[in-house]
């Protein structure tokens, strides 16, 4: 019996590969990619004061490792847009009379605006800022100025957590769940769609009819788009009534984007379906796709905390972009213009998956 199982295992190369591949993938992701203490978060500086103290302050932020100063801007409006689109995680506002107030011991206020949709991403950085405050100006404030090191620090940090001021994790997780649930169910359902026909022998019959590959694909996809929409609605209802997640943006836009995302996942499922020899393999492939979709998409762990290679993989996954869209629409009230950078990767992904699926689906048994 044991021997027979091993022999069968050896014959089923894909299953065997998965058995080795999935642990390896998990090791890589959990071991290297995931980091719950994300650093180098993109930050914009809105500096109205260019004096030496302001420079020192910015330098200190940079050396703290938590902030990567990617942009300097002079306009408040642009800073807001950067935050909303998600180009930066923080905007640091240095007031015009920063240096003067500092020297007078007036404890100037530095406003740090954070995109707090994901509290896990902003938390450690904000904690680091407060720790920083006491020590920043040690060198710049020698001798008599040392008195400015008041107990509370020479600078007062005002932290403004946008989009999720109370740092409620659910606000981030529940909308994200939409992408995860859709990925899981949609890929598995259609992953089985063609392998099931093949296993039950109905494929041969279907191929003998004049039905075209594109018709088969569309026929297999359409019913599940309806299923996907039911899931989206259920999650939205739960998000609203149970978790009280704010819904700032347009639900219509969200539904439109969901269509794109559902279709992309269904196309992946169909593609798997044409690659897998049996239903078991199809499920394994779906799992193989699902794992990074959960771990590298920014659903469970902050996207920006991952090393570049993991971010690159994450950027290829539709879930990553859909998460940003959902969170953007629900929490930030983003419109079409703000989510546009996330739409084209979804479209591209859909086109590629669909093309592979249709090409792989052969009209003959050759």
């Amino acid at each position, binding site marked *: 019996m044991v021997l027979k199982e091993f022999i069968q295992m050896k014959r089923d190369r894909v299953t065997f590969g998965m058995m080795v591949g999935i642990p390896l993938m998990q090791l890589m992701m959990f071991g290297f990619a995931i980091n719950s203490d994300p650093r180098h978060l993109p930050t914009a500086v809105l500096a109205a004061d260019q004096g030496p103290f302001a420079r020192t302050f910015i330098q200190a932020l940079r050396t703290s490792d938590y902030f990567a100063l990617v942009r300097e801007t002079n306009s408040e409006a642009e800073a807001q847009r950067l935050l909303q689109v998600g180009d930066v995680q923080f905007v640091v506002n240095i007031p015009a009379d920063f240096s003067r107030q500092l020297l007078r011991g007036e404890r100037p206020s530095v406003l740090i605006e954070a995109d707090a949709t994901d509290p896990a991403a902003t938390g450690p950085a904000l904690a680091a800022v407060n720790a920083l405050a006491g020590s920043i100006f040690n060198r710049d404030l020698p001798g008599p100025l040392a008195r400015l090191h008041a107990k509370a620090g020479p600078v007062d940090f005002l932290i403004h957590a946008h989009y999720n001021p109370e740092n409620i994790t659910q606000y981030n997780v529940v909308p994200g769940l939409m992408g995860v649930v859709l990925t899981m169910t949609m890929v598995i359902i259609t992953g089985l769609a063609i392998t099931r026909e093949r296993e039950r*022998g*109905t494929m*041969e*019959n279907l191929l*003998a009819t004049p039905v075209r590959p594109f018709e088969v694909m569309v026929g297999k996809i359409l019913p599940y788009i309806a299923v996907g929409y039911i899931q989206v609605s259920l999650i939205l209802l739960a998000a609203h009534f149970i978790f009280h997640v704010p819904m700032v943006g347009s639900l219509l836009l969200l539904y439109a984007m969901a269509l794109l995302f559902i279709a992309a996942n269904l196309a992946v499922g169909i593609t798997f379906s044409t690659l897998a020899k049996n239903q078991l393999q199809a499920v394994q492939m779906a799992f193989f796709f699902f794992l990074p979709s959960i771990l590298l998409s920014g659903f469970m762990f902050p996207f920006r905390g991952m090393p570049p290679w993991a971010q690159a993989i994450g950027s290829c996954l539709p879930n990553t972009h859909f998460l940003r869209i959902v969170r953007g629409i629900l929490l930030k009230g983003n419109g079409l213009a703000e989510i546009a950078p996330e739409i084209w990767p979804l479209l591209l992904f859909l086109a590629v998956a669909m093309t592979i699926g249709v090409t792989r689906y052969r*009209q*003959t048994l050759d």
Partner: protein
Amino acid sequence: MSATDFAIDVTGITKRFGPKTVVNAIDLQVRRGEIYGFLGPNGSGKTTFIRMLCGLLTPDGGSGTCLGYDVRTQQAEIKCHVGYMTQKFSYYEDLSIRENLDFIARIYDVPDRAAAVERSLVRLGLQNRSAQLAGQLSGGWKQRLALAACLIHSPQLLLLDEPTAGVDPKARREFWDEIHQLAADGLTVLITTHYMDEAERCHRLAYLAYGNLLTRGTLTEVLQSVKLTTWTVTGPALRDLAAALRGRDGVEQVVAFGNTLHVSGRDPARLETAIAAVRTPNHEWTRIRSGLEDVFISLMDGAKDNFA
């Protein structure tokens, strides 16, 4: 005879899977309205050949037409006019009989679909079971459903791949009556089978072994194509007799049929010499006409020799 009188007209059809030639340069002409029997042992290439006719596989070599459409390039057209019944039941077990028929009718874009479905239910006597799930049907009923489904778009050619495997004799007879009725109405039928009695109900036969077409023609032509002589013997201790006969010069087949033995060979003189050697007064020997089965086994043995 013009080309259009043939429903199937192919020459040199070849299919290779890797290094293995599964169908080797087969020529076949099937007239319209004819029932053509396709025989041969398992793995002889019958299914592969049929799949090439209905556009499921592309031939590696050879050319020809099926219903006037090129088998290599016009597979889409062929699919619209051919009814193909697969060896294994290939409809949806979790759909009802009516739903299955309706689905197939939709795929073929059958005009006046509801009426077509109803007609085929009535003709096959399935109308009072139409809500039953296909998966719950017995083998015989599944076969009837499959036949109904592949007739729903009124094809001109029916390709049946072992349609009666695992079906009881009464259902088989009814099935064949139906096939003859369809052929009388002008439908061409190509059917594969392992049953000799079914082979005898075909207008023409072809015998395939190891991808090669060994013989073809009407029943009489096929029987005459192999000059086989067969004797039957009855009497005591047939098993010992069979053992004594096997391996003797001139004896090609010794087959037990209940209480008789069939002994065949292609050379009548050598066969008689062999029989004379084991003849005893207790046994009664009679010379009979060779059956189709004897002929086919003889053909297959010959083919194996060529193949090895």
